[in-house]
């Protein structure tokens, strides 16, 4: 058993997949091998997606299961043996850490990088779980797929039926749809896509896929 001992003779803890353990703040505080730290998680969201680290100031991060990270709006005693705490946000203990669809839908509006905008038909295909060939000149890997939804609520009720005309005028305004959408806070994350070789692969889990009519 000597190979399981640290230099100081203590036995390192292993991950207990049946309970929640709060992530250590930094590497220096890590006692369980392979466990992500809070710093690594927040840095990933900031470096990859431009989500400001302070977005998560009031949240704690937890691991249950091998590498599944949860985000909780508060603090609790660790370890914690319950069914769920907050929501799953990230899959770690693999080469490329993967944010969850539901996390991206909840926090993805804070992202400024690696956000791929989809037109309505592309968004519809993404939501059904389809892969599609798309142009993207940014990094490959996990992206946040987003589209415009619920645009310009002002005067909305009297403008029913004019949405097509509106989006047509957007595309000729000189600003990108993303700039327009950000201004109106109308760009809404759909989920996570994996971009490789000119193709966006929808990572929307089966149970969350929907056939949308329009």
């Amino acid at each position, binding site marked *: 058993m000597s190979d399981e001992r640290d230099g100081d003779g203590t036995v390192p803890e292993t991950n207990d997949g049946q309970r929640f353990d709060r992530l250590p703040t930094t590497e220096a505080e890590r006692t369980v091998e392979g466990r992500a730290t809070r710093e690594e998680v927040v840095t990933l969201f900031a470096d990859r997606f431009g989500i400001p680290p302070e977005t998560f100031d009031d949240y704690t991060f937890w691991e249950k299961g091998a590498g599944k990270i949860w985000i909780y709006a508060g603090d*609790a*005693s660790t370890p914690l043996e*319950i069914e769920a*705490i*907050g929501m799953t946000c990230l899959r770690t203990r693999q080469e490329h850490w993967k944010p*969850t669809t539901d996390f991206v839908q909840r926090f993805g509006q804070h992202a400024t990088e690696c956000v791929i905008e989809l037109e309505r038909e592309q968004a519809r295909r993404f*939501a059904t779980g389809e892969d599609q060939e798309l142009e993207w000149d940014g990094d490959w890997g996990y992206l946040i797929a987003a589209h415009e939804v619920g645009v310009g609520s002002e005067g909305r*009720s009297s403008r029913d039926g004019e*949405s097509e005309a509106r989006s047509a005028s957007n595309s000729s305004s000189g600003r990108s749809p993303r700039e327009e959408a950000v201004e109106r806070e109308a760009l809404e994350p759909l989920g996570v896509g994996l971009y490789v070789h000119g193709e966006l692969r929808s990572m929307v889990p089966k149970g969350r896929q*929907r056939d949308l009519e329009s």
Partner: protein
Amino acid sequence: MEPLERYRPIIDDFDAFLAACERPLGNAVRVNTIKASVERTLAALAEEGIAYEQADWNPRVLDLETDSPGSTWTSFHGFTHGQEEVSAVPPVVLAPEPGERVWDCCAAPGGKATQIAALMDDRGTVVANDNNLGRISALRFNAERLGATSLAVTNADARNYSLSRFDFDEFDRTLVDAPCSCEGTIRKNPDALDNWSEGHISSVAGIQKGIIRRAIQATREGGTVVYSTCTFAPEENEAVVQHALETESCRVVDFDLGLEHSPGLTEWDGEAFDSSLANAARIYPHQNDTGGFFVAKLEVTAE
């Protein structure tokens, strides 16, 4: 409808009540303000060409004119959640505040627990418990789709619920949306009365009494407990609250409700209940064209 005949003496315009019970319900959804404002949700629905009607008493409750409310963009994004109009009443009566600790002791499949989280701006702790592990997976799915980060989900019998798993020992508010004979869901589930019997009502009432007592014990003095069911049977409603009044430190308090309703009963089948039970609300299907519901609000008092 035969079992409902026993309520003829207590329901005004009983024929209208029966007629309403025969009619199917519309597609009600609740706007999930954790993910989108009401304004934005309405804009998204309009964009999709889905007509809606907003409930007078609660702008977050909508009736959608669509055959598939689960296949809308607003549903995909978690802006809306399918939830019957009356089912949105108990969290509003509970009136939780951001940052509080709230217990939803029979929480699956999570419509009310996520509504509580939304009313708290998703800040604080909503302990969403259910004794049925299978239903907890539905609760968890809904909570994640709706983006609720303030939920802690547990799987236990509420009647002997232990707080030892947490680092606090009482809740500010508790919702007891009790398992019941579900008579009030007849418009949604036409077979709701198929296995109806007085024996079933009596046995489920025993469970309800155990849950409401534990809920009061686990809530701080001055805190709020809301007791609700989707059934008409007084044995599962006023009689359960009466049992709580007799065995625990609490009182029934009045509350405002923007839906038409009838007062709680003060007597049934020869049994008298405390006069404060008139503060409870009985919501009948013909009053607002909804399902049926019972809601009582209790304040936990000093022992």
